[in-house]
């Protein structure tokens, strides 16, 4: 029983960075912008998040540093793709290449340092309930924050007028513009939200997942988050399912190594990446009747004046 509890706790923790980054990207893509720079924003978020926490001793300040870093990078992306109408795919790649370099530069001073990670919650009585107590009330605060974020995004997209406008902008920017909605401004906020989430997702890794920073510690999680958005068919509910499935694959891979399964560790480590490819194929094949992606996704918009 304790092993199962431990595994579930580990899955929740492993899923949280994916869920955070994917939620941000979902909003960005719902507004019609494809930002492939998630990995870059995450990895800079990780370096800045760790740096902030290490210098100040505060996990919260660390998390804020990650958010600010991710947002700033996303603003560069917004300037390029919205202001200058540059191809979104190429700009996203540029953002990732730049992010990996910046992260190494910023993080060079912190390699080898340790911090005390974000504490796990401990609510009297509730956390001590057998079986479910630690799972429901005993994780670090980020895990619950990420779930609250998905629920808020769902409410925003489907239950508010602003959410409706954002989806309209993503589905048909020409009509939305004709109706008088500020397409570029809405897209800019969506991109910034995505950047903030990616920065926080990156900061989660050194602040709560491991208590140290190593270069390249995001290890492709940003790209997996992008795949998750496709997996979820741009719906927040399915995003939660997808993120936890991928978290489970990651943990399975770690535990299989611990149990001494006779498979080389490198093959187990490649599982999450192979799973991503397989999931993308299955999902794309299932959607032959027409894509559920926002119709204007990835197209540039230059308003007529």
């Amino acid at each position, binding site marked *: 029983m304790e092993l199962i509890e431990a595994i579930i706790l580990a899955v929740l923790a492993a899923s949280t960075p994916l869920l955070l980054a994917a939620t941000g990207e979902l909003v960005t893509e719902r507004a019609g912008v494809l930002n*492939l720079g998630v990995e870059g924003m995450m990895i800079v978020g990780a370096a800045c998040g760790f740096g902030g926490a290490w210098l100040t001793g505060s996990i919260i300040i660390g998390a804020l540093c990650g958010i600010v870093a991710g947002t700033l990078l996303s603003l*560069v992306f917004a300037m*390029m793709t919205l*202001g*200058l*109408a*540059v*191809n979104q*795919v*190429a*700009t996203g*790649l*540029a*953002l990732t*290449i*730049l*992010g*990996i*370099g*910046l*992260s*190494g*530069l910023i993080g*060079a001073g912190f390699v080898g340092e340790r911090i005390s990670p974000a504490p796990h919650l401990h609510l009297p009585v509730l956390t001590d309930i057998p079986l479910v107590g630690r799972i429901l009330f005993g994780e670090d605060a980020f895990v619950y924050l990420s779930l609250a974020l998905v629920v808020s995004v769902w409410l925003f997209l489907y239950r508010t007028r602003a959410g409706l406008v954002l989806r309209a902008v993503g589905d048909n920017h020409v009509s939305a513009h004709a109706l008088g909605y500020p397409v570029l401004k809405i897209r800019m906020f969506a991109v910034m939200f995505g950047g903030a989430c990616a920065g926080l997702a990156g900061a989660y890794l050194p602040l709560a997942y491991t208590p140290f920073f190593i270069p390249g510690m995001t*290890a*492709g999680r940003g*790209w*997996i988050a*992008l*795949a998750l958005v*496709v997996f979820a068919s741009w719906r927040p509910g399915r995003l939660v399912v997808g993120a936890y499935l991928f978290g489970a694959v990651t943990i399975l891979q770690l535990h299989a190594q611990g149990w001494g399964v006779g498979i*080389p560790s*490198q*093959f187990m*480590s*490649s599982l999450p*990446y*192979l799973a*991503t*490819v397989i999931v*993308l*194929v299955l*999902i*794309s*094949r299932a*959607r*032959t009747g027409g*894509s559920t992606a926002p119709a204007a996704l990835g197209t540039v918009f*230059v*308003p007529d*004046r």
Partner: protein
Amino acid sequence: MQLVLEKRAERSNTIALVSPLIAIGLTLVTMSILFAILGKNPISALGVYFIDPLTDSYSLQEIAVKATPLVMIAIGLSLCYLANAWNIGAEGQFLIGAVAGSWLAVKTQGTGAGPWVLPAMLLLGAAAGALYALIPALCKVKFGASEILTSLMLVYVADLFLDYLVRGPWRDPAGFNFPTTAEFDPVATVPVLIEGGRLHLGAIIALVVVAAGAVLLGKTIKGFEIRVVGAAPRAARFGGFNSNQLVLLTFAISGALAGMAGIIEVAGPVGHLQPGISPGYGFTAIIVAFLGRLNPVGILIAGLFLALTFIGGEQAQIAMKIPLDVTKVFQGILLFYVLACDSLILYRFRLIFASRQVA
């Protein structure tokens, strides 16, 4: 008063020519500021980066050595990008090519095999790279899966596979437990062009690839189809061009070139298979392709320039203790400026005064 972007009536050829130069200029200014922030003298730092490597024959050869894989990969990528197929996984195709070619080198080690070994290795590398690239291409064509994400995921898989081989079955028993194969036999090694130097046959192969790319794009129907499918998909459909087939073709070519670049790198400058054989060639080649404006000759020049940043970065690390990651920051910023300046080929800025009057 506001600044707005406005579509030009036709593309500006002047800007198309000078935009890479403007981009490089802006990058140099940005880098100077970054150097100043790092507490280094910008002038001498830029000197170490861009001038010093050009002053001695060793560094000049080294630039050609680094440019070889960059140019080969970027030529292939440019075909994909022209056809609007986004192969982002050249790094993985590079690694798999290196693995496949190394297999023969490891198998024939010490058997006194003849001079057929190296050509066979190159072919194996190209074939493996092409097959590896066809996985995401087929997933896209058959199932509509995003080739961007699948080709990228396969980079991590290739990296782990190589790691497994050199730590497990292929590890050199006499290698003091280092994760590496034994040094390749001379017949499995790319010959150097200048006695005692580092410049190797791969540089010639890269030049042949540039020429072949130029002929393919400029003189053949296939090249024309590739360009039309990318630039005007609707027109291409009316023309009866099969865009799925072109996705497969461009991915196969680009995978083959990346794979061959991989085995050339391992059988040449490195000399054995080990982890870390690529300082991100597959990703830097994306910048090379765009800086060279997806044009073979442009790519040759851009490849030499990016190679210069690798060598300059190494020298700056030794001479001025500038962190090696500055090179990656430099390359990322350069790609941003290239893309931003290219925007002005199709658009221009206009100042609008009080355009938002009450209707």
